[in-house]
C-alpha cells in the first residue's frame, strides 16, 4: 500500500500500579487492513485496544491516528475518537434510550447532523445489520446478538475510518455468534480498517489480513493468518495455539 499507516503505535508502555501491562509495544495498521489480536487472558489485548482511542493513557510511547498524535491531542481527542468506532464485549448500549436514539444521539450531538438525517442514516444502518424493525424498542428487549449488532450500527453512524472490536462475541450465546461475525465480515469486505481482539480463531483466519499474538504485554509474533496459525515461529505461539485450536 502506498499510503502511510492509519494507526501507528511506537514503544508504548502501560502499567496499572506495579503491574506492567504493555511493554514496549509497537504496531502499525494500514488503511483498509483487518488486524486480529489474539493471546491468553491478561496479556494486554484489551488494554492495547483501549489505548488506541484514548480510553487508557500509556505512560510512554507514541500513538498516531491518521497522522495525528493521540497523546498530545488534548481536548481534540473527542474529534479523533469520533472517527473511530469501538465495539465492546458487554455491548454498552444506552438502556434509557430506544434503539433508534442509541444510534442517532452521537451523530446529532457530535457530528451536528439534522435529527431527520440522523434518523434516516440510523434506519439504513439498522437495515444493514438486519434489525430494521427494532428501531423503536429498548435495549433490554434485545437478545445479545441483536444488542451487539445495534452497537455496531451505533458506531458506524459516526462514519468512522477505523473500527475497534474488543471480544465482540465473547458475551454471546454460541448460536448468536454467527450473526455478529457476519456483520463484521461484511464490513471487512467493504474495506473498513478494523482492529479486532477475539478468541474466534476460525474468524481470525478467514477475515484477518494479519494476526498479532500477544503474551505478557508484548507482541510475540505477527504474520499472515495462514503463516501464524499453520507455521508459528515462536514456541510461545505454538504453545498457545495448541491449547485453543
Amino acid at each position, binding site marked *: 500500500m502506498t499510503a502511510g499507516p492509519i494507526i501507528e503505535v511506537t514503544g508504548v508502555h502501560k502499567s496499572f500500579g506495579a503491574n506492567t501491562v504493555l511493554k514496549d509495544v509497537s504496531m502499525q495498521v494500514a488503511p483498509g487492513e483487518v488486524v486480529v489480536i489474539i493471546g491468553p487472558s491478561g496479556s494486554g489485548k484489551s488494554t492495547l485496544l483501549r489505548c488506541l482511542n484514548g480510553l487508557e493513557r500509556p505512560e510512554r510511547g507514541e500513538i498516531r491516528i491518521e497522522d495525528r498524535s493521540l497523546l498530545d491531542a488534548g481536548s481534540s481527542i*473527542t474529534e479523533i475518537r469520533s472517527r473511530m468506532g469501538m465495539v465492546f464485549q458487554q455491548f454498552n448500549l444506552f438502556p434509557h434510550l430506544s434503539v433508534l436514539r442509541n444510534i442517532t444521539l452521537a451523530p446529532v450531538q457530535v457530528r451536528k447532523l439534522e435529527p431527520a438525517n440522523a434518523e434516516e442514516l440510523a434506519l439504513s444502518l439498522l437495515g444493514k445489520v438486519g434489525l430494521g424493525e427494532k428501531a423503536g424498542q429498548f435495549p433490554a428487549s434485545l437478545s445479545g446478538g441483536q444488542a451487539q449488532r445495534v452497537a455496531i450500527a451505533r458506531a458506524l453512524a459516526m462514519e468512522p475510518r477505523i473500527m475497534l472490536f474488543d471480544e465482540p462475541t465473547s458475551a454471546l450465546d454460541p448460536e448468536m455468534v454467527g450473526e455478529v461475525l457476519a456483520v463484521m465480515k461484511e464490513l471487512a469486505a467493504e474495506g473498513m480498517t478494523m482492529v479486532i481482539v477475539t478468541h474466534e480463531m476460525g474468524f481470525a483466519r478467514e477475515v484477518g489480513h494479519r494476526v498479532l499474538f500477544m503474551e505478557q504485554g508484548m507482541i510475540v509474533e505477527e504474520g499472515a493468518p495462514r503463516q501464524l496459525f499453520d507455521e508459528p515461529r515462536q514456541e510461545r505461539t505454538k504453545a498457545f495455539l495448541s491449547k485453543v485450536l
Partner: protein
Amino acid sequence: MHFRFDIIVDYIPLLLKGAALTIGISALAIVLGSILGLAVSFGKMSSRWYLSWPTSGYIHFFRGTPLYVQILIVHFGLVPACIGHTDAIVAAITALALNSAAYTAEIYRAGIQSIDKGQTEAAQSLGMTSGQTMRFIILPQAVRRMIPAFGNEFVVLIKDSSLVALIAAPELMYWSNVMRGQYLRVWEPYLAAAFIYLILTYSLSKLLGWMEKKGVAG
C-alpha cells in the same frame, strides 16, 4: 381531662395555612437544594483540589452541625448580610436549601457512581465530551435510581422544616405554638400538628412509591 376538638376546629384555617407554607418552603428548598447539590457533587467528584476541598468542607459543615444552628446563622447572619434586613421565610428556605444541598450532593454522587463505567466509555468512544456524556447518558440513568433517595430527603425536609418556627416563619409548627399560647393547652395543638405532618409525609411516600413503580415499569 377531656380532649377539646372544638379549639382544633377553630384553628383549622390557620393550621392549614401553616401546612401550605410548610409544603411551599419544603418544596422550594428541595428544588433549590437539588440544583445546588448537583453543583456541590460535581465539585466533590472533581480531581481539582480547589473544587473538591471547598465542596467537601461544605458537605461536612452542613451534615456535621445542627440544623437549628444553621437556621440561626442564616436568619441572623447570612440573610441580613445579603439583603440588609432579615426575613423569616427567605431565611427558612435558604437554610433548608443549603442544608439539603449537602445531603442531595451525596445522593447525586452515589447515583452517578453507580452507573456502569462502560456507559461512559461507550459515550466517549463515540466522541462525546464529558459534559455531553454526563447530560445525555449518566444523569438520565442516575436520576431514575436516585428517586427513592430524593423522596426520603423530601420527607426529612418536611419534618425538619418544623424547626423554622423558631425564627417565626408562620408555618404549621408556628401556628400550633400560637394555639398553645392562646388556650394554654398542649395536647390539642401539638397532636393536631403531628397528625397533619403525618398526612403530608405519608401521602408523599405513597406518591413516591407509585412513581417508582411507574419508573421501573416504563
